[in-house]
């Protein structure tokens, strides 16, 4: 019975898990000392969520049949808004707790508006999303450059605030809060995709837009929402990543694009839309996020990283493709 949805999805998720376990076994064998101790997992938990959260959001975009290349720049710009505004408010004598609350909301708003702009370009002006978001990718990155003039912003003044702890505090001195956020968001995205009407509409729109229209699904609204949640998650990632180092680098977001997309595809989501798995993206993000550290830990130099990224992506995609064809 390979024709039911449950069977197909289960097999895909099991193969993703297989890839994941295979890689970790390699790490364990290659460097038992590093991988039997907590430190490396601590470092994974503090860094993987930044791109992991965006990977969840872009999974939804890809399932809906669209693409967004601008999210790293949205992350950068909304992060810059967050940091710059924080400093402005602090200098004008605002209480740090209030400051970070205001700037967080402004940062989210920036991300959502940037996402809505992508949505408008795609839905109203009808530019294919791949092309439209190349444009906005340069635009938001350029705006950071113009506004920030290449300078970073310190985030030390908001360090002793409540929200700081909520975002990136350490639970029991051991678990980074962002890892918990990543877990919670994975569950939330899973629920939305599989159990909510909105997720159903995203799947159907990505599957066949014309059918969706004929059956009364508001395609444009679905797409707008999909781009807006992408912007929101990018802004959240911007806050987390800059607070983690209590500094806003003007280059924030650079380097995230391909890794995040790789996480989604290694996770087994189809490029063609209409199907996808949040569980897969979660595992994919962990695989991609742990490779660099793992490679160095087993004694290879950093020069190997890209080669191994490439291998993992090609091998895992081949496995999924093989299973799909066998159906």
């Amino acid at each position, binding site marked *: 019975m390979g*024709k039911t949805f449950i069977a197909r999805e289960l097999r895909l998720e099991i193969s993703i898990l297989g890839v994941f376990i295979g890689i970790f076994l390699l790490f364990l064998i290659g460097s038992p000392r590093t991988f039997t101790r907590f430190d490396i997992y601590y470092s994974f938990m503090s860094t993987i969520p930044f791109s992991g959260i965006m990977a969840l959001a872009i999974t939804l975009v890809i399932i809906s049949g669209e693409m967004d290349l601008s999210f790293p720049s949205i992350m950068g710009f909304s992060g810059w808004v967050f940091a710059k505004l924080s400093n402005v408010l602090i200098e004008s004598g605002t209480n740090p707790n209030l400051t970070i609350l205001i700037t967080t909301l402004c940062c989210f708003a920036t991300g959502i508006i940037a996402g809505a702009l992508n949505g408008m370009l795609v839905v109203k002006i009808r530019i294919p999303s791949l092309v439209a978001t190349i444009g906005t990718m340069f635009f938001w990155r350029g705006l950071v450059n113009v506004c920030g003039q290449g300078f970073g912003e310190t985030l030390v003044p908001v360090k002793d605030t409540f929200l700081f702890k909520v975002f990136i505090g350490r639970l029991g001195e051991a678990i980074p809060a962002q890892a918990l956020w990543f877990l919670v968001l994975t569950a939330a995205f899973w*629920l939305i995709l599989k159990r909510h009407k*909105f997720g159903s509409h995203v799947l159907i729109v990505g*599957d066949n837009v*014309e*059918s*969706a*229209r004929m059956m*009364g699904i508001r395609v444009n609204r679905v797409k707008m929402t999909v781009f807006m949640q992408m912007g929101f998650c990018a802004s959240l990632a911007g806050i987390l990543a800059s607070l983690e180092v209590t500094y806003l680098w003007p280059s924030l977001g650079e380097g995230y694009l391909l890794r995040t997309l790789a996480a989604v595809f290694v996770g087994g989501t189809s490029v063609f839309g*209409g199907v996808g798995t949040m569980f897969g993206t979660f595992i994919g993000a962990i695989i991609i996020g742990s490779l660099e550290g793992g490679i160095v830990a087993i004694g290879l130099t950093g020069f190997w990283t890209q080669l191994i990224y490439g291998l993992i992506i090609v091998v895992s995609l081949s496995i999924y493709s093989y299973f799909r064809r066998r159906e």
Partner: protein
Amino acid sequence: MAEKDYSRKLVSMVEIQKSFGKVEVLKSVNFEVGHNEIVGLVGDNGAGKSTLIKILTGVHQPNGGEIYFKGEKITIHSVERSRELGIETVYQEQALSEQQTMWRNIFMGREITDKLGFLKIKQQRRETEKILREQMGFTSKAINTESIVKYLSGGEKQGIAIGRSLYFDADLIILDEPTMGLSLAETKKALDFIRNVKDIGKSAIFISHNIYYVYPVADRFVILDRGNVAGRFLKSKITQDELFEKMVHLAKTGKMR
């Protein structure tokens, strides 16, 4: 001029115009469906039949003209609105989501949810199961509510499209080429279904190229030709052969007589 009384008819489409870009697909079409009437809508490829019914179902917006349903003028043209009014459609393109499960397909666009919008999956599965066994008459154990539509046969897919339109209690059922790709036995089922619509007192629009399917079940025929209504005939006024002759003649010469 006195307002015409549109309440005698279930649907009245008045002087409907539609263009796609510069191409005028419908040129002032008048089309009606009576209460408890089966209308056969026929015409050559590209005549505008599907476009006409998609305007009625809210998929396309008309560029001109008016639509009345049960005597009331329709001002909002959307799929949701037409469903509210009680119009169900089996589209020529089937309007399925091929990579999704059967139950998602049955309820697409009108999922059963709780107040927060979360799906009542169990209930949707149960209803799908019912439609599957009772209305579509699927007995094969290989097909269930979790089946992915892509792997079903053409007839089975059409069965979903028809079964779905039946489930939601409608006053007007539109079937655009419902027998396409069906075996003889399946075709008979589809035709019986249309007869049943008549028996339970509802109305239908039946679009097909095959006069031999349309003639027996329809009460009235409307021939559409390049965006114009070329002829209207009551079944009592025309035989099957005459209707066939007329269509062949029209296709050859572009004229009715």
